[in-house]
């Protein structure tokens, strides 16, 4: 991974690398609160922890200042399914940036990964908004510490199994999904019903244009 970065995102089509992003994230206020509470006890003897969730999910979106396919994101069908301005943050669009906004409390334009509706899914909440980090059949390899103080998440997703697409406008062309933001979530975050959950870490990146044939691979290092 390039020095100064901690998130690596590869997009491959039929094995060929078509996009590479190496960026650094922000550990949000929610993430800082998470660690402070995770260290703490509510009561002692018996010991009751203040919280007991672990980092578990990743979610993607089309928001953030690095989105360079804004016309696509702002046009039907994407804008029908993912209307701008729905975030509780009151975002006016493509303003979230990871390098000065630890107050980020959600993805700006989260995209669903499994859905049953082509309508405004933010209001219906019928999508699956986050997926568990990739796990091989060997559960013991799930948690990776390349160094004692570094926690590495690995995530792989085939577009066909993730990221819903609204119906093409004319019904013929394959839709594209212009991804430009991602977030990490703990196990306390719901995977459905709530698109705007607060991430513990957030990152923007130059748009990756996902197609049906795109495989996405993410490595996210969290360093203490």
């Amino acid at each position, binding site marked *: 991974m390039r020095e100064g970065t901690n*998130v690596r995102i590869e997009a491959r089509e039929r094995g060929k690398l078509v996009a590479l992003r190496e960026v650094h994230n922000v550990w949000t206020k929610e993430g800082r609160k998470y*660690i402070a509470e995770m260290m703490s*006890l509510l009561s002692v003897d018996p010991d009751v922890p203040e919280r*007991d969730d672990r980092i578990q999910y990743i979610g993607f979106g089309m928001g953030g200042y690095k989105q360079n396919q804004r016309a696509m994101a702002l046009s039907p069908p994407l804008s029908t399914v993912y209307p701008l301005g729905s975030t509780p943050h009151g975002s006016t669009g493509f303003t979230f940036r990871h*390098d000065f906004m630890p107050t980020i409390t959600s993805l700006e334009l989260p995209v669903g990964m499994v859905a049953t509706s082509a309508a405004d899914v933010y209001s219906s909440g019928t999508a699956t908004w986050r997926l568990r980090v990739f796990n091989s059949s060997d559960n013991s390899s799930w*948690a990776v510490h390349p160094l004692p*103080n570094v926690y590495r998440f690995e995530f792989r997703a085939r577009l066909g199994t993730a990221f819903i697409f609204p119906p093409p406008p004319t019904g013929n062309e394959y839709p594209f999904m212009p991804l430009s933001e991602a977030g990490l979530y703990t196990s306390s975050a719901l995977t459905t019903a709530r698109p705007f959950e607060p991430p513990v870490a957030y990152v923007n990146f130059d748009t990756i244009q996902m197609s049906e044939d795109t495989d996405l691979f993410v490595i996210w290092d969290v360093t203490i």
Partner: protein
Amino acid sequence: MPHFTDTIEIKQNLSLIMRERGKIVARREGHNIWLDIGKQYIAELMTWLTIGPDVAERSDRIKYMGFGVGGTRQLSPAVANAPPISPPYVGTNAQTDVDPTVSVLERPVRISGSSSAYPGLAGDVWVGTIQAPVVHSIPSESTFRRLFAQTEISYGGFSSVPLSEIGLFTSAANPENYKNLMVAYDTFDTLSKTGAFDIEVAWTIRVT
């Protein structure tokens, strides 16, 4: 524009207030060090070991504090290196609070128990339990507090104990073990703890 790094940082402030019948007689305040063991602790605390069923990599939480007469800021070496302090609390005064590889108190002292040399006897208590619930003055801060009473540390033949180091421990520590791994550490100018004094400790951890 403020710069936010991609590394989580742990910053701390430690406050020690020694009182005699409620009146402050000495105070120590300052920064201290989050150790490499502490960094590993947080990385592992966020992690699942396995999923389906979900098994956490570790589940201990910060629970104990302990004192010692070690560290480079011991200002009463004549007291610290002579009976009744040494023996039993033998050792050097070489540890600093700028070395993240430090792992244990250099010369830990008992909260209560015997006066035996290291490793002590069954029933000796080396670390004290913090107060709960933990205080969060702001969401990203945790303040761990404990009051070390007059009869703690300074008991029996230990009429005056020249304290000069302190450690923060998780619930993985064994209070009856004299050498527990710490997550945070500090050395300070000597506080001579006697049976007339109590010490209030407030250890604030801030995640940035």
